[in-house]
């Protein structure tokens, strides 16, 4: 039962919050309720869930039969001919590295790098998930303050003795940039802290590679949105958590398959 301090129309205002039709004063009021009254969070969840379920009310349309194969082909990098990694030293010109010769079996989809205000915070940290459930309903400045505290805690948790830590230097393509890469082999997660690595356009992304015996292993991708940015993600390959590898960052087109083709922007010390 709702607290007697909530006005009678509290559910209508929550509905307005989901529909995004509130004034800034109404928004502030709702967000205060969410902080003060747990029943409002539960009800907002129900309303949001109702709104999010609307696509299921549509009469299903038949799928184009060729689409399944097209999608599965798009995600299988091993189906493409393996290419040597173009360069391990900084490029001598600003035009970047030559494009890898990769045959594309279908039209390139139009992608756009979608970035969130904070990285994938909370992998393996249970207490963060609870806080995150509230973050979506908090005001932007509250979110940023909370994210900053969480980032500090995450960096601290990653800095364990024995965990691989890489210092990345900017290449000629981005001489001012630097990075620190912390890897947690137990949770198979990476934490990338970049300084002065510029945000990329919407259709581009930075990709991390581990050089294992001359072959680049894809280790994740990110796009910083501030001069000092922290990003965290799950590692796609266990080779990414080895400590005796060279780590490289390139600038890629987001639509491209995970094979390095773009400019080298950051690199750790060579292990050869």
């Amino acid at each position: 039962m709702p607290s007697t301090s909530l006005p009678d129309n509290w559910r209508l205002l929550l509905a307005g919050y989901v529909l995004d039709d509130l004034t800034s004063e109404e928004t502030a009021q709702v967000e205060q309720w969410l902080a003060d009254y747990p029943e409002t969070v539960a009800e907002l969840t129900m309303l949001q869930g109702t709104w999010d379920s609307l696509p299921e009310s549509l009469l299903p349309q038949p799928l184009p039969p060729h689409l399944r194969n097209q999608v599965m082909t798009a995600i299988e990098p091993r189906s493409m001919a393996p290419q040597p990694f173009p360069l391990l030293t900084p490029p001598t010109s600003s035009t970047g590295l030559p494009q890898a010769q990769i045959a594309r079996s279908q039209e390139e989809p139009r992608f756009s790098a979608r970035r969130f205000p904070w990285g994938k915070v909370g992998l393996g940290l249970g207490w963060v998930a609870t806080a995150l459930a509230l973050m979506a309903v908090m005001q932007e400045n509250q979110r940023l303050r909370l994210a900053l505290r969480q980032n500090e805690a995450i960096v601290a948790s990653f800095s364990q003795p024995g965990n691989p830590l890489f210092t990345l230097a900017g290449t000629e393509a981005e001489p001012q940039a630097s990075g620190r890469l912390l890897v947690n082999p137990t949770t198979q997660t990476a934490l990338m802290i970049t300084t002065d690595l510029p945000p990329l356009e919407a259709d581009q992304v930075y990709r991390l590679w581990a050089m294992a015996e001359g072959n680049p292993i894809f280790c994740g991708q990110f796009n910083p949105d501030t001069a000092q940015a922290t990003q965290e993600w799950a590692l796609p390959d266990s080779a990414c958590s080895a400590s005796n590898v060279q780590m490289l960052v390139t600038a890629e087109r987001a639509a491209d398959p995970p094979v390095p083709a773009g400019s080298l922007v950051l690199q750790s010390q060579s292990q050869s």
Partner: protein
Amino acid sequence: MSPFKEPDAQDPSSESDHDLVARLWSGQTDALAVLYDRYAQMVYTLALRMLSNSAEAEDLTQEVFVNFWQRRQYDPSRGSVGSFLATYTRSRALDRLRVSGGRAVILQRFQRLSLASSTGLTPLEHASRSEQQQQLRAALDQLPATEREVLEIAYFEGLSQSQIAEKLGIPLGTVKSRSRQGLLRLRDLLQPPNQ
């Protein structure tokens, strides 16, 4: 008869979405094929409804699934795979339609997907998927037509309240009250409060 495939009947493995995602992110891309079989029709249907163009809907469907695998933005603690895919599809469709005033607004709406918790607070949590769809359609049928209309325009066309008011030739206050009441009524029909 359910128009959407039911995982138990159609998938040999009957693997949970959670397990499929875990396998997918450990590199087993065959898991995406199963997720595709479960959700591609919903994604494509939504994309087609919003974009009104089958080539664009195909393109968006491919983008949604490839991004799901490649960008790993889905967080299981923040909601179900179906909810994530639906919200992501809608968000990307709105981007393509270039409505609702720009990326900041779209991002904000997208972030609210986290509220559909996987711990059982969504209205349709305890029904099978086909039951959910039937319940939802039945509930929508029970809404006053004026309320249903503004909700569907807001969701599938991504128009703001003022844009809807202009489109329908009714006052902004009327749009607000119809859509808010409609959402509350729909929510109550799907799962009556205090039960």
